[in-house]
Protein backbone atom coordinates (compact mmCIF):
# COMPACT_ATOMS: atom_id res chain seq x y z
CA UNK A 1 0.00 0.00 0.00
CA UNK A 2 1.16 3.53 -0.81
CA UNK A 3 0.46 5.28 2.47
CA UNK A 4 0.75 8.72 0.88
CA UNK A 5 -2.01 7.91 -1.57
CA UNK A 6 -4.27 6.77 1.25
CA UNK A 7 -3.39 9.31 3.96
CA UNK A 8 -6.56 11.08 4.99
CA UNK A 9 -7.41 14.11 7.08
CA UNK A 10 -11.03 13.69 8.05
CA UNK A 11 -12.43 16.77 9.78
CA UNK A 12 -9.04 17.32 11.39
CA UNK A 13 -8.62 13.66 12.35
CA UNK A 14 -5.45 12.28 10.75
CA UNK A 15 -5.75 8.71 9.51
CA UNK A 16 -3.43 6.23 7.75
CA UNK A 17 -6.19 5.29 5.30
CA UNK A 18 -9.74 6.49 4.63
CA UNK A 19 -11.17 3.14 5.80
CA UNK A 20 -12.33 2.75 9.39
CA UNK A 21 -13.92 -0.03 11.41
CA UNK A 22 -17.51 1.00 12.12
CA UNK A 23 -18.88 1.34 15.62
CA UNK A 24 -20.49 -1.82 16.98
CA UNK A 25 -18.71 -4.06 14.49
CA UNK A 26 -15.09 -3.44 15.43
CA UNK A 27 -15.12 -3.87 19.19
CA UNK A 28 -12.37 -1.61 20.50
CA UNK A 29 -10.11 -2.61 17.61
CA UNK A 30 -7.72 -4.81 19.56
CA UNK A 31 -9.99 -7.84 19.02
CA UNK A 32 -8.87 -7.74 15.37
CA UNK A 33 -5.14 -7.89 16.01
CA UNK A 34 -4.90 -11.58 14.98
CA UNK A 35 -6.53 -10.85 11.63
CA UNK A 36 -5.01 -7.60 10.38
CA UNK A 37 -2.29 -5.02 10.90
CA UNK A 38 -3.88 -2.33 13.05
CA UNK A 39 -1.40 0.20 11.59
CA UNK A 40 -3.27 -0.16 8.30
CA UNK A 41 -6.64 0.63 9.83
CA UNK A 42 -7.77 4.20 9.10
CA UNK A 43 -9.46 4.46 12.46
CA UNK A 44 -10.96 2.26 15.09
CA UNK A 45 -14.45 3.52 15.93
CA UNK A 46 -15.34 2.07 19.30
CA UNK A 47 -18.42 0.14 20.30
CA UNK A 48 -21.00 2.62 21.60
CA UNK A 49 -20.14 3.77 25.11
CA UNK A 50 -22.81 4.95 27.56
CA UNK A 51 -22.67 6.74 30.93
CA UNK A 52 -23.41 3.51 32.84
CA UNK A 53 -22.72 -0.14 31.97
CA UNK A 54 -25.47 -1.68 29.84
CA UNK A 55 -26.36 -5.38 29.60
CA UNK A 56 -28.18 -4.90 26.30
CA UNK A 57 -31.40 -6.54 25.16
CA UNK A 58 -32.74 -9.97 26.16
CA UNK A 59 -33.43 -12.81 23.77
CA UNK A 60 -32.17 -13.39 20.25
CA UNK A 61 -30.01 -10.47 19.10
CA UNK A 62 -28.81 -11.53 15.64
CA UNK A 63 -30.68 -12.69 12.55
CA UNK A 64 -29.42 -13.41 9.06
CA UNK A 65 -31.38 -11.62 6.31
CA UNK A 66 -31.00 -11.60 2.53
CA UNK A 67 -27.49 -10.18 1.92
CA UNK A 68 -27.29 -8.81 5.41
CA UNK A 69 -28.22 -9.10 9.04
CA UNK A 70 -30.45 -7.64 11.72
CA UNK A 71 -29.18 -6.93 15.20
CA UNK A 72 -30.75 -5.69 18.41
CA UNK A 73 -27.78 -5.82 20.75
CA UNK A 74 -29.02 -2.80 22.69
CA UNK A 75 -25.70 -1.01 23.27
CA UNK A 76 -24.19 -3.59 25.60
CA UNK A 77 -21.01 -1.99 26.92
CA UNK A 78 -19.06 -1.65 30.18
CA UNK A 79 -19.79 2.08 30.60
CA UNK A 80 -17.57 5.15 30.32
CA UNK A 81 -15.66 4.65 33.57
CA UNK A 82 -14.50 1.11 32.76
CA UNK A 83 -13.73 2.24 29.21
CA UNK A 84 -11.44 5.01 30.42
CA UNK A 85 -9.83 2.97 33.19
CA UNK A 86 -9.33 -0.45 31.52
CA UNK A 87 -10.05 -0.40 27.81
CA UNK A 88 -8.51 2.79 26.46
CA UNK A 89 -5.06 2.10 27.99
CA UNK A 90 -5.15 -1.41 26.48
CA UNK A 91 -6.06 0.00 23.06
CA UNK A 92 -3.26 2.56 23.20
CA UNK A 93 -0.78 -0.16 24.21
CA UNK A 94 -1.84 -2.64 21.48
CA UNK A 95 -2.44 -0.09 18.72
CA UNK A 96 -0.36 2.97 19.63
CA UNK A 97 -0.32 4.32 16.08
CA UNK A 98 -3.94 3.77 15.12
CA UNK A 99 -6.41 6.63 15.12
CA UNK A 100 -9.11 5.98 17.73
CA UNK A 101 -12.58 7.49 17.61
CA UNK A 102 -14.87 6.99 20.60
CA UNK A 103 -18.56 6.44 19.81
CA UNK A 104 -20.96 7.29 22.60
CA UNK A 105 -24.55 8.09 23.49
CA UNK A 106 -26.58 9.21 26.46
CA UNK A 107 -30.17 9.42 27.69
CA UNK A 108 -30.35 13.19 27.94
CA UNK A 109 -28.74 16.25 26.38
CA UNK A 110 -26.79 16.70 29.64
CA UNK A 111 -25.52 13.09 29.40
CA UNK A 112 -24.04 13.86 26.01
CA UNK A 113 -22.19 16.85 27.42
CA UNK A 114 -20.86 14.86 30.37
CA UNK A 115 -19.72 12.04 28.07
CA UNK A 116 -17.99 14.44 25.65
CA UNK A 117 -16.12 15.98 28.56
CA UNK A 118 -15.02 12.61 29.97
CA UNK A 119 -13.81 11.54 26.53
CA UNK A 120 -11.77 14.70 26.04
CA UNK A 121 -8.58 12.84 26.95
CA UNK A 122 -5.29 11.81 25.35
CA UNK A 123 -5.59 8.68 23.26
CA UNK A 124 -8.96 9.65 21.81
CA UNK A 125 -8.50 11.32 18.43
CA UNK A 126 -12.12 12.17 17.73
CA UNK A 127 -15.60 11.45 18.99
CA UNK A 128 -18.64 10.07 17.19
CA UNK A 129 -21.96 11.09 18.67
CA UNK A 130 -24.52 8.31 18.34
CA UNK A 131 -28.00 9.77 17.99
CA UNK A 132 -29.20 6.92 15.83
CA UNK A 133 -29.18 3.58 17.65
CA UNK A 134 -32.52 1.99 16.76
CA UNK A 135 -32.36 -0.58 19.55
CA UNK A 136 -32.63 1.42 22.75
CA UNK A 137 -35.67 3.34 23.91
CA UNK A 138 -34.01 6.09 25.86
CA UNK A 139 -31.40 8.18 24.11
CA UNK A 140 -30.08 7.06 20.77
CA UNK A 141 -32.67 7.47 18.10
CA UNK A 142 -34.90 9.84 20.07
CA UNK A 143 -32.34 12.53 19.29
CA UNK A 144 -31.69 11.24 15.79
CA UNK A 145 -35.13 11.78 14.32
CA UNK A 146 -35.82 15.31 15.57
CA UNK A 147 -33.61 18.03 14.05
CA UNK A 148 -34.01 20.32 17.08
CA UNK A 149 -32.98 17.58 19.52
CA UNK A 150 -30.08 16.57 17.27
CA UNK A 151 -28.89 20.18 17.15
CA UNK A 152 -29.19 20.51 20.94
CA UNK A 153 -27.07 17.39 21.48
CA UNK A 154 -24.48 18.58 18.96
CA UNK A 155 -24.20 22.01 20.57
CA UNK A 156 -23.86 20.46 24.02
CA UNK A 157 -21.11 18.10 22.82
CA UNK A 158 -19.22 20.85 21.00
CA UNK A 159 -19.06 22.99 24.12
CA UNK A 160 -17.64 20.09 26.16
CA UNK A 161 -14.82 18.82 23.97
CA UNK A 162 -11.70 19.89 22.14
CA UNK A 163 -11.94 16.88 19.79
CA UNK A 164 -13.38 16.84 16.28
CA UNK A 165 -17.06 15.88 16.55
CA UNK A 166 -18.71 13.47 14.12
CA UNK A 167 -22.49 13.09 14.44
CA UNK A 168 -23.81 9.71 13.29
CA UNK A 169 -27.14 10.01 11.54
CA UNK A 170 -30.07 7.63 11.28
CA UNK A 171 -31.53 6.66 7.92
CA UNK A 172 -34.91 6.12 9.60
CA UNK A 173 -36.14 9.63 8.78
CA UNK A 174 -38.13 11.17 5.94
CA UNK A 175 -35.30 13.43 4.78
CA UNK A 176 -31.80 12.82 6.09
CA UNK A 177 -30.56 16.15 4.69
CA UNK A 178 -32.73 17.98 7.24
CA UNK A 179 -30.89 16.20 10.04
CA UNK A 180 -27.49 16.76 8.44
CA UNK A 181 -28.12 20.48 8.02
CA UNK A 182 -29.37 20.77 11.60
CA UNK A 183 -26.23 19.26 13.11
CA UNK A 184 -23.99 21.20 10.73
CA UNK A 185 -25.61 24.44 11.86
CA UNK A 186 -25.12 23.35 15.48
CA UNK A 187 -21.37 23.03 14.94
CA UNK A 188 -20.73 19.38 13.99
CA UNK A 189 -17.34 18.92 12.35
CA UNK A 190 -18.56 15.96 10.29
CA UNK A 191 -21.48 13.59 9.83
CA UNK A 192 -21.42 9.79 9.59
CA UNK A 193 -24.14 7.98 7.68
CA UNK A 194 -25.89 5.66 7.67
CA UNK A 195 -26.63 3.86 10.90
CA UNK A 196 -28.80 0.74 10.51
CA UNK A 197 -32.28 0.68 8.98
CA UNK A 198 -35.02 -0.58 11.28
CA UNK A 199 -36.21 -4.02 10.21
CA UNK A 200 -38.09 -7.08 11.44
CA UNK A 201 -38.16 -10.83 10.90
CA UNK A 202 -41.10 -13.06 11.90
CA UNK A 203 -40.78 -16.78 12.62
CA UNK A 204 -43.69 -18.29 10.67
CA UNK A 205 -43.69 -21.43 12.81
CA UNK A 206 -44.13 -19.70 16.15
CA UNK A 207 -45.76 -16.52 14.74
CA UNK A 208 -43.36 -14.58 16.94
CA UNK A 209 -40.72 -12.02 15.99
CA UNK A 210 -37.34 -13.69 15.68
CA UNK A 211 -35.53 -10.93 17.56
CA UNK A 212 -35.90 -10.50 21.29
CA UNK A 213 -36.42 -6.76 20.86
CA UNK A 214 -39.05 -7.34 18.11
CA UNK A 215 -37.25 -5.05 15.65
CA UNK A 216 -33.57 -4.59 14.92
CA UNK A 217 -31.12 -2.67 12.77
CA UNK A 218 -30.47 -3.90 9.23
CA UNK A 219 -26.91 -3.80 7.93
CA UNK A 220 -24.75 -5.54 5.36
CA UNK A 221 -24.66 -5.38 1.54
CA UNK A 222 -28.46 -5.17 1.39
CA UNK A 223 -28.43 -1.55 2.59
CA UNK A 224 -25.59 -0.26 0.40
CA UNK A 225 -27.56 1.42 -2.41
CA UNK A 226 -29.69 3.28 0.16
CA UNK A 227 -26.57 4.44 1.97
CA UNK A 228 -24.88 5.62 -1.25
CA UNK A 229 -28.02 7.56 -2.18
CA UNK A 230 -28.16 9.21 1.25
CA UNK A 231 -24.46 10.14 1.17
CA UNK A 232 -25.02 11.69 -2.26
CA UNK A 233 -28.00 13.70 -0.98
CA UNK A 234 -26.21 14.87 2.15
CA UNK A 235 -23.08 15.80 0.18
CA UNK A 236 -25.24 18.18 -1.82
CA UNK A 237 -26.78 19.65 1.33
CA UNK A 238 -23.84 20.30 3.70
CA UNK A 239 -20.25 21.50 3.54
CA UNK A 240 -18.82 19.44 6.40
CA UNK A 241 -17.11 16.13 5.51
CA UNK A 242 -19.06 12.88 5.41
CA UNK A 243 -18.06 9.49 6.78
CA UNK A 244 -19.91 7.07 4.51
CA UNK A 245 -20.93 3.62 5.62
CA UNK A 246 -23.61 1.02 5.09
CA UNK A 247 -22.98 -2.33 3.47
CA UNK A 248 -19.39 -1.80 2.36
CA UNK A 249 -17.77 -5.18 1.68
CA UNK A 250 -15.20 -4.38 -1.02
CA UNK A 251 -13.02 -1.55 -2.31
CA UNK A 252 -15.47 -1.10 -5.19
CA UNK A 253 -18.26 -0.47 -2.68
CA UNK A 254 -16.11 2.04 -0.81
CA UNK A 255 -15.22 3.89 -4.00
CA UNK A 256 -18.93 4.38 -4.74
CA UNK A 257 -19.29 6.13 -1.38
CA UNK A 258 -16.26 8.34 -2.08
CA UNK A 259 -17.60 9.30 -5.50
CA UNK A 260 -21.00 10.03 -3.93
CA UNK A 261 -19.33 12.54 -1.63
CA UNK A 262 -17.94 10.72 1.40
CA UNK A 263 -14.43 11.85 2.45
CA UNK A 264 -13.85 8.60 4.33
CA UNK A 265 -15.68 5.32 4.79
CA UNK A 266 -16.26 2.67 7.40
CA UNK A 267 -16.71 -1.08 7.09
CA UNK A 268 -19.42 -2.53 9.34
CA UNK A 269 -21.10 -5.94 9.23
CA UNK A 270 -18.51 -7.21 6.76
CA UNK A 271 -15.94 -7.25 9.57
CA UNK A 272 -17.86 -10.16 11.08
CA UNK A 273 -17.62 -12.17 7.86
CA UNK A 274 -14.13 -11.21 6.71
CA UNK A 275 -12.24 -9.83 9.71
CA UNK A 276 -9.48 -8.38 7.51
CA UNK A 277 -12.01 -6.38 5.44
CA UNK A 278 -10.95 -2.91 6.66
CA UNK A 279 -7.42 -3.45 5.37
CA UNK A 280 -8.50 -5.34 2.22
CA UNK A 281 -10.78 -2.43 1.27
CA UNK A 282 -7.94 0.07 1.78
CA UNK A 283 -5.59 -2.05 -0.35
CA UNK A 284 -8.21 -2.21 -3.10
CA UNK A 285 -8.70 1.56 -3.04
CA UNK A 286 -4.93 2.00 -3.32
CA UNK A 287 -4.77 -0.28 -6.36
CA UNK A 288 -7.64 1.63 -7.97
CA UNK A 289 -5.94 4.99 -7.35
CA UNK A 290 -2.66 3.68 -8.75
CA UNK A 291 -4.32 2.36 -11.92
CA UNK A 292 -5.97 5.71 -12.51
CA UNK A 293 -2.85 7.70 -11.74
CA UNK A 294 -4.42 9.51 -8.80
CA UNK A 295 -2.13 10.84 -6.09
CA UNK A 296 -4.51 10.85 -3.14
CA UNK A 297 -7.86 9.36 -2.29
CA UNK A 298 -9.31 12.85 -1.81
CA UNK A 299 -9.30 13.20 -5.60
CA UNK A 300 -12.30 10.84 -5.73
CA UNK A 301 -14.49 12.60 -3.20
CA UNK A 302 -17.80 13.79 -4.65
CA UNK A 303 -16.67 13.21 -8.24
CA UNK A 304 -19.79 11.34 -9.35
CA UNK A 305 -20.77 12.70 -12.77
CA UNK A 306 -24.41 13.78 -12.95
CA UNK A 307 -24.86 14.97 -16.54
Amino acid sequence: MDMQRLATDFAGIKMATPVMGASGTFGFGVEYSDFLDLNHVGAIISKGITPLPRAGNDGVRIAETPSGMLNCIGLENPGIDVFLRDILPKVRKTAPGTTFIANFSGSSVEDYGMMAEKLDVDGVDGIEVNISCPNVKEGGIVFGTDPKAAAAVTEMVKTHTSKPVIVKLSPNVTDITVMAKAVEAAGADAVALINTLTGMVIDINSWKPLLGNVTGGLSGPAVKPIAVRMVYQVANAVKIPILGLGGIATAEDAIEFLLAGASAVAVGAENFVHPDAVVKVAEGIDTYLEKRGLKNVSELVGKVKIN
Partner: protein
Amino acid sequence: MATKKLVETGNVISNEELSADVNAMVLECPKVVELAQPGQFVMIKNEMGSTYLRRPFGVADVDKEKGLLLLIYRKAGKGTNELSMLEEGAPISVEGPLGNGFSFDNDGRTLLVGGGVGIAPIIYTARKLGAEMAGPKPIILLGVRNHKELFWSDFLEDFSQKLVYTTDDGSYGRKGFAIDAIPDILKAYPDIKHIKVCGPTIMMKGIAELAIKQGLECEVSLEKRMACGFGVCLGCTFEGKSGKRWKVCGDGPVFDAEEVFG
Protein backbone atom coordinates in the same frame (compact mmCIF):
# COMPACT_ATOMS: atom_id res chain seq x y z
CA MET B 1 -6.62 -19.30 27.25
CA ALA B 2 -7.76 -18.50 23.76
CA THR B 3 -5.26 -19.39 21.10
CA LYS B 4 -4.20 -17.34 18.12
CA LYS B 5 -6.91 -17.33 15.45
CA LEU B 6 -6.76 -17.02 11.69
CA VAL B 7 -8.76 -17.33 8.50
CA GLU B 8 -7.78 -20.09 6.10
CA THR B 9 -9.24 -21.24 2.80
CA GLY B 10 -9.72 -24.97 3.22
CA ASN B 11 -10.67 -27.71 0.80
CA VAL B 12 -13.52 -30.16 1.13
CA ILE B 13 -12.00 -33.65 1.31
CA SER B 14 -15.30 -35.46 1.87
CA ASN B 15 -18.88 -34.55 2.70
CA GLU B 16 -20.98 -37.60 3.48
CA GLU B 17 -24.42 -38.31 4.85
CA LEU B 18 -24.35 -40.04 8.21
CA SER B 19 -28.15 -40.13 8.45
CA ALA B 20 -31.10 -38.50 6.68
CA ASP B 21 -30.26 -35.06 8.07
CA VAL B 22 -26.76 -35.27 9.53
CA ASN B 23 -23.58 -34.87 7.45
CA ALA B 24 -19.88 -35.32 8.18
CA MET B 25 -17.55 -32.97 6.35
CA VAL B 26 -13.79 -33.34 6.34
CA LEU B 27 -11.85 -30.18 5.48
CA GLU B 28 -8.18 -29.76 4.81
CA CYS B 29 -7.13 -26.63 6.71
CA PRO B 30 -3.79 -27.40 8.39
CA LYS B 31 -3.16 -24.00 9.98
CA VAL B 32 -6.41 -23.98 11.93
CA VAL B 33 -6.09 -27.69 12.74
CA GLU B 34 -2.61 -27.23 14.17
CA LEU B 35 -3.95 -24.88 16.83
CA ALA B 36 -7.35 -26.45 17.53
CA GLN B 37 -8.12 -27.80 21.01
CA PRO B 38 -11.07 -29.98 22.10
CA GLY B 39 -14.20 -27.88 22.68
CA GLN B 40 -13.13 -24.99 20.45
CA PHE B 41 -15.13 -24.03 17.37
CA VAL B 42 -14.69 -22.58 13.89
CA MET B 43 -16.74 -20.09 11.87
CA ILE B 44 -17.39 -21.38 8.36
CA LYS B 45 -18.21 -19.40 5.22
CA ASN B 46 -19.18 -21.14 2.03
CA GLU B 47 -18.15 -18.40 -0.39
CA MET B 48 -20.21 -20.03 -3.16
CA GLY B 49 -23.33 -20.11 -0.99
CA SER B 50 -26.11 -17.56 -0.66
CA THR B 51 -25.96 -16.86 3.07
CA TYR B 52 -24.13 -13.80 4.39
CA LEU B 53 -22.79 -14.50 7.87
CA ARG B 54 -20.40 -17.24 8.89
CA ARG B 55 -21.82 -20.08 10.97
CA PRO B 56 -20.27 -21.59 14.09
CA PHE B 57 -19.44 -25.31 14.14
CA GLY B 58 -17.79 -27.18 16.97
CA VAL B 59 -14.50 -28.87 16.11
CA ALA B 60 -15.64 -32.51 15.96
CA ASP B 61 -12.21 -34.00 15.46
CA VAL B 62 -8.81 -33.28 13.93
CA ASP B 63 -6.02 -35.20 12.25
CA LYS B 64 -3.04 -33.01 13.05
CA GLU B 65 -0.63 -34.98 10.87
CA LYS B 66 -2.76 -34.63 7.77
CA GLY B 67 -4.17 -31.20 8.66
CA LEU B 68 -7.76 -32.42 8.54
CA LEU B 69 -10.76 -31.03 10.38
CA LEU B 70 -13.98 -32.98 10.91
CA LEU B 71 -17.30 -31.14 11.19
CA ILE B 72 -20.58 -32.93 11.86
CA TYR B 73 -23.69 -30.87 11.20
CA ARG B 74 -27.44 -31.20 10.93
CA LYS B 75 -29.01 -29.90 7.73
CA ALA B 76 -31.28 -27.41 9.47
CA GLY B 77 -31.62 -24.47 7.09
CA LYS B 78 -30.49 -22.85 3.89
CA GLY B 79 -26.83 -22.49 4.90
CA THR B 80 -26.32 -26.08 6.05
CA ASN B 81 -28.29 -27.44 3.08
CA GLU B 82 -26.00 -25.56 0.72
CA LEU B 83 -23.02 -26.82 2.71
CA SER B 84 -24.21 -30.40 2.27
CA MET B 85 -24.08 -30.01 -1.51
CA LEU B 86 -20.37 -29.11 -1.62
CA GLU B 87 -18.25 -31.72 -3.33
CA GLU B 88 -14.67 -32.82 -2.92
CA GLY B 89 -12.24 -30.03 -3.75
CA ALA B 90 -14.67 -27.18 -3.07
CA PRO B 91 -13.05 -24.23 -1.27
CA ILE B 92 -14.44 -23.16 2.07
CA SER B 93 -13.32 -20.38 4.38
CA VAL B 94 -12.47 -21.53 7.90
CA GLU B 95 -11.96 -19.00 10.71
CA GLY B 96 -10.54 -20.36 13.91
CA PRO B 97 -9.82 -21.92 16.19
CA LEU B 98 -12.17 -19.85 18.32
CA GLY B 99 -13.07 -19.73 21.99
CA ASN B 100 -11.84 -21.75 24.93
CA GLY B 101 -12.26 -25.51 25.00
CA PHE B 102 -12.65 -28.08 27.75
CA SER B 103 -10.14 -28.29 30.58
CA PHE B 104 -8.34 -31.54 31.30
CA ASP B 105 -7.29 -33.11 34.54
CA ASN B 106 -5.49 -36.39 35.09
CA ASP B 107 -7.22 -36.94 38.41
CA GLY B 108 -10.16 -39.36 38.06
CA ARG B 109 -12.36 -40.47 35.21
CA THR B 110 -14.48 -38.25 32.97
CA LEU B 111 -18.06 -38.80 31.87
CA LEU B 112 -18.69 -37.19 28.48
CA VAL B 113 -22.32 -36.51 27.62
CA GLY B 114 -23.58 -35.39 24.22
CA GLY B 115 -27.02 -34.75 22.81
CA GLY B 116 -27.99 -34.43 19.15
CA VAL B 117 -25.33 -32.79 16.98
CA GLY B 118 -23.89 -31.51 20.26
CA ILE B 119 -22.18 -34.88 20.28
CA ALA B 120 -19.73 -33.63 17.64
CA PRO B 121 -17.19 -31.90 19.94
CA ILE B 122 -17.31 -34.91 22.25
CA ILE B 123 -15.27 -36.84 19.65
CA TYR B 124 -12.09 -34.76 19.84
CA THR B 125 -12.53 -34.48 23.60
CA ALA B 126 -12.79 -38.27 23.86
CA ARG B 127 -9.71 -38.69 21.64
CA LYS B 128 -7.72 -36.51 24.01
CA LEU B 129 -8.92 -38.35 27.13
CA GLY B 130 -8.99 -41.84 25.66
CA ALA B 131 -5.97 -41.88 23.37
CA GLU B 132 -3.64 -39.01 24.23
CA MET B 133 -3.80 -38.76 28.02
CA ALA B 134 -2.60 -41.36 30.50
CA GLY B 135 -5.63 -41.52 32.81
CA PRO B 136 -8.65 -43.82 32.60
CA LYS B 137 -10.66 -43.78 29.37
CA PRO B 138 -13.88 -41.75 29.51
CA ILE B 139 -17.39 -43.11 29.78
CA ILE B 140 -19.47 -41.67 26.95
CA LEU B 141 -23.22 -41.14 27.17
CA LEU B 142 -25.12 -40.08 24.08
CA GLY B 143 -28.72 -38.94 23.82
CA VAL B 144 -30.10 -39.41 20.29
CA ARG B 145 -33.53 -39.52 18.62
CA ASN B 146 -33.58 -43.16 17.55
CA HIS B 147 -31.63 -46.19 16.33
CA LYS B 148 -30.84 -44.43 13.02
CA GLU B 149 -28.36 -42.17 14.84
CA LEU B 150 -25.90 -44.77 16.07
CA PHE B 151 -23.25 -43.68 13.56
CA TRP B 152 -21.53 -41.83 16.42
CA SER B 153 -20.12 -45.16 17.61
CA ASP B 154 -17.75 -45.28 14.62
CA PHE B 155 -16.10 -42.07 15.83
CA LEU B 156 -16.10 -42.80 19.55
CA GLU B 157 -15.71 -46.51 20.25
CA ASP B 158 -11.90 -46.52 20.26
CA PHE B 159 -11.67 -43.78 22.86
CA SER B 160 -14.28 -44.91 25.38
CA GLN B 161 -14.30 -47.32 28.29
CA LYS B 162 -18.03 -47.70 27.75
CA LEU B 163 -20.43 -46.11 25.26
CA VAL B 164 -24.05 -45.73 26.39
CA TYR B 165 -27.02 -44.55 24.32
CA THR B 166 -30.41 -43.28 25.28
CA THR B 167 -33.02 -42.78 22.54
CA ASP B 168 -36.12 -40.61 22.55
CA ASP B 169 -38.25 -43.49 21.25
CA GLY B 170 -36.56 -46.44 22.93
CA SER B 171 -35.54 -47.95 19.58
CA TYR B 172 -32.03 -48.52 20.95
CA GLY B 173 -30.54 -48.48 24.44
CA ARG B 174 -32.45 -46.91 27.26
CA LYS B 175 -35.63 -45.00 26.38
CA GLY B 176 -35.60 -41.45 27.67
CA PHE B 177 -33.14 -38.65 28.18
CA ALA B 178 -29.40 -38.91 28.68
CA ILE B 179 -29.69 -37.72 32.27
CA ASP B 180 -31.83 -40.77 33.17
CA ALA B 181 -28.81 -43.03 32.57
CA ILE B 182 -26.39 -41.07 34.75
CA PRO B 183 -27.18 -42.50 38.23
CA ASP B 184 -26.42 -46.07 37.03
CA ILE B 185 -23.22 -44.92 35.32
CA LEU B 186 -22.00 -43.15 38.45
CA LYS B 187 -22.75 -46.29 40.48
CA ALA B 188 -20.82 -48.50 38.06
CA TYR B 189 -17.86 -46.10 37.78
CA PRO B 190 -17.32 -44.45 41.16
CA ASP B 191 -13.99 -43.05 39.92
CA ILE B 192 -15.84 -40.49 37.75
CA LYS B 193 -14.85 -37.00 38.94
CA HIS B 194 -15.62 -34.86 35.91
CA ILE B 195 -18.62 -34.45 33.63
CA LYS B 196 -18.43 -32.59 30.34
CA VAL B 197 -21.65 -31.93 28.44
CA CYS B 198 -22.55 -30.58 25.01
CA GLY B 199 -26.15 -30.66 23.84
CA PRO B 200 -29.51 -28.91 24.14
CA THR B 201 -29.76 -26.36 26.99
CA ILE B 202 -32.41 -28.34 28.86
CA MET B 203 -30.16 -31.40 28.86
CA MET B 204 -27.10 -29.47 30.04
CA LYS B 205 -29.10 -27.74 32.77
CA GLY B 206 -30.41 -31.01 34.21
CA ILE B 207 -27.01 -32.69 34.13
CA ALA B 208 -25.28 -29.62 35.54
CA GLU B 209 -27.67 -29.54 38.49
CA LEU B 210 -27.13 -33.25 39.10
CA ALA B 211 -23.35 -32.85 38.94
CA ILE B 212 -23.34 -29.87 41.29
CA LYS B 213 -25.50 -31.81 43.78
CA GLN B 214 -23.07 -34.75 43.63
CA GLY B 215 -20.02 -32.53 43.98
CA LEU B 216 -18.65 -33.45 40.55
CA GLU B 217 -16.73 -30.95 38.47
CA CYS B 218 -18.88 -30.15 35.44
CA GLU B 219 -18.28 -28.19 32.24
CA VAL B 220 -20.95 -27.32 29.70
CA SER B 221 -20.51 -26.16 26.11
CA LEU B 222 -22.99 -23.45 25.12
CA GLU B 223 -24.41 -22.54 21.75
CA LYS B 224 -25.86 -19.13 20.88
CA ARG B 225 -26.44 -17.11 17.75
CA MET B 226 -23.39 -15.04 16.89
CA ALA B 227 -22.28 -12.97 13.93
CA CYS B 228 -18.52 -12.78 14.48
CA GLY B 229 -17.22 -15.55 16.76
CA PHE B 230 -14.47 -13.49 18.41
CA GLY B 231 -16.08 -11.07 20.80
CA VAL B 232 -17.14 -8.00 18.85
CA CYS B 233 -20.78 -8.39 17.74
CA LEU B 234 -22.04 -9.15 21.27
CA GLY B 235 -24.84 -11.31 19.88
CA CYS B 236 -23.99 -14.21 22.21
CA THR B 237 -23.49 -12.63 25.63
CA PHE B 238 -25.21 -13.76 28.84
CA GLU B 239 -25.07 -13.00 32.54
CA GLY B 240 -23.50 -15.69 34.69
CA LYS B 241 -24.60 -16.64 38.20
CA SER B 242 -21.74 -14.50 39.57
CA GLY B 243 -23.26 -11.46 37.88
CA LYS B 244 -20.41 -11.24 35.39
CA ARG B 245 -21.29 -10.91 31.71
CA TRP B 246 -19.75 -13.51 29.41
CA LYS B 247 -19.35 -13.93 25.67
CA VAL B 248 -20.14 -17.47 24.54
CA CYS B 249 -17.69 -17.04 21.64
CA GLY B 250 -14.67 -15.56 23.39
CA ASP B 251 -15.02 -16.60 27.03
CA GLY B 252 -16.63 -19.96 26.17
CA PRO B 253 -18.13 -21.86 24.53
CA VAL B 254 -17.10 -24.08 27.45
CA PHE B 255 -18.05 -22.78 30.89
CA ASP B 256 -18.04 -24.10 34.41
CA ALA B 257 -21.56 -25.43 34.96
CA GLU B 258 -21.96 -23.55 38.26
CA GLU B 259 -21.52 -20.20 36.53
CA VAL B 260 -24.23 -21.03 33.98
CA PHE B 261 -26.71 -23.22 35.85
CA GLY B 262 -25.64 -23.12 39.52
